[in-house]
């Protein structure tokens, strides 16, 4: 599964980002390969959000390089990043609950035939693209308010892929969902991995999900990379401790045990 000899689809080298005197990211190196899920882990304030924003062109890094397919690149706007194939699916998904599945899929990038929208063609593409991710949309004209949270996530992912994402950034895709729907989303992510064309960056708080789906792991703590490596290089039992920022959990554990005895 892991082919480390190939060039990473996206790679950061020594990236730093400062906001005034705050060091949001310092000397962060990070890579993601196609056909792999790179889990990006870390506590609140670890710099995950800043890193996503650097990857998707919202923030311009103060130091370091971004390489796409090995070629150094700069994004000045999110649009630059999107053109180069960075598809970001944010937590709120950017969907319109009262609009139909198809209209959501194509919003902002509609297909027209002459003056009017080509609804038949758009319905057909929506159905095909959703089917690729294992969801059979019987009626793409129904409002997405009727779909489950997991299905909406799939719609947002399918849309990003259809419009040319080579790198798919999923910002906590499971955090707002119920247990069953979380598994539905993990299935979808797995489907994308099996296409073997797209590098997936999976941001999560949930060590169980990270363990299930991750091929590579990058741990952030206080703006720096705490640990980084493939599945077989990381101590999987220590995942939770690494996510919480290293030894802090162990300290707390011993602290509690000391107070209780």
């Amino acid at each position: 599964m892991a082919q480390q000899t190939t060039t990473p689809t996206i790679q950061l080298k020594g990236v730093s980002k400062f906001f005034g005197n705050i060091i949001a990211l310092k000397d962060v190196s990070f890579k993601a390969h196609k056909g792999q899920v790179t889990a990006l882990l870390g506590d609140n304030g670890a710099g995950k959000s800043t890193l996503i924003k650097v990857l998707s062109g919202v923030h311009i890094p103060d130091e370091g390089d971004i390489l796409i397919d090995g070629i150094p690149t700069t994004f000045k706007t999110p649009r630059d990043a999107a053109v180069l194939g960075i598809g970001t699916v944010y937590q709120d998904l950017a969907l319109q609950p009262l609009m139909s599945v198809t209209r959501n899929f194509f919003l902002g990038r509609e297909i027209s035939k002459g003056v009017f929208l080509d609804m038949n063609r758009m319905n057909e593409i929506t159905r095909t693209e959703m089917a690729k991710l294992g969801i059979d949309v019987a009626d793409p004209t129904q409002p997405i308010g009727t779909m489950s949270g997991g299905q909406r996530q799939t719609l947002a992912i399918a849309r990003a892929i259809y419009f040319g994402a080579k790198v798919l950034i999923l910002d906590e895709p499971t955090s707002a969902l119920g247990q069953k729907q979380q598994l539905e989303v993990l299935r979808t992510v797995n489907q994308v991995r099996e296409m073997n064309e797209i590098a997936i960056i999976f941001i999560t708080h949930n060590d169980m999900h990270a363990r299930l789906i991750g091929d590579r792991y990058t741990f952030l703590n206080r703006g720096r990379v705490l640990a980084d490596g493939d599945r077989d290089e990381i101590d999987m039992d220590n995942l939770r401790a690494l996510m919480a920022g290293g030894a802090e959990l162990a300290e707390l554990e011993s602290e509690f045990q000391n107070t209780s005895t």
Partner: protein
Amino acid sequence: MSGTDERIRQVGLVQSFVARPELGSVFGLAIIVITFMIMTSISGTFSAMWTNPIGIQAWVELAAFVGILAIGASLLMIAGEFDLSIGANIALAGHSFALLLIFGVPVAPAILLTFVELAFLGFIIGVIVVRTGLPSFIVTLGFWFASRGFAVFLSQTLLNQSRLSVKPQLKAPAGGGEDPTIIDNLFAFDKGFGLPFDAEVYYFAILVIMVALMLQKSRFGNWIYAAGGDPTAARAVGVPVNRVKISLFMLSACLACLLGVLTVMTSGASDPKAGDFRELHAIAAAVIGGCALTGGYGSVIGAVLGAFIFAIASRGINFVPFIDNNMFRVMLGLLILGAAFLNQFLRNRVLKG
């Protein structure tokens, strides 16, 4: 893993029909028409209202007047905005047009200049709403006072009159001239196409078809829904939300301008009270027609049906002598409440599937 069964339910024909935003107004129109047919039958005025050309003209022309404004009001409401200034803008347009005529500008350029003025006003309103983030209700409330105030101020200062007569500057039919130009024919014809209606009815018919097609079938229409449904989400996928909203405020002002110019062309005068309260009638029509005040949902066809409901109730009351005229307002109030309630119910049904 796939499978139609649990993931997506089939939606039947009845369900899709219930999902249409204008459903409530279809029922409303049916109820209003039947009610007034029964009441006029009792009063012996059935033919006066429903078959006599003058009777039909009375409510169709009102429906067209309110309906033209409701087209703009419903689009704005779907985009999540309000325009209270449209009624006042009719007076501003009428007065601007009349003043231009009085100061010697020929009819065609005067019409053009008036449209430019009102489009610019709509642009300013839109920019203020989009840039300041103030509710459009407040911004256009400001213009509700300012537009009419400015119109009357201008005519008072320049001519010391508040009502401006332009009969001498106009030809047929308002001015009684012998030789109407194309422009006169275009803006002031009546009884055209063998039907007993003034020009606004034909403009209304054309506009409804164009705007309804635009809203349902064009990319701009898609963006209107998105701008009102969730502007942040719409921006995230590249919809130019601000541009959409500003264009709709411009359209709304231009529709008011059309009515202002048509009124002057047909009546030969500009009245400072022209269009008074029409903004509320247009908003009522949009609400009855199924537009959600929170944006993202509604239809132009619904608003048009709403305008007909308003007009039939409004004019019909004159054909039913046993009901007090003031009761009309009570009825209309209940109608708006009932429609809003029904529409909310239907909208929730859409989301539940």
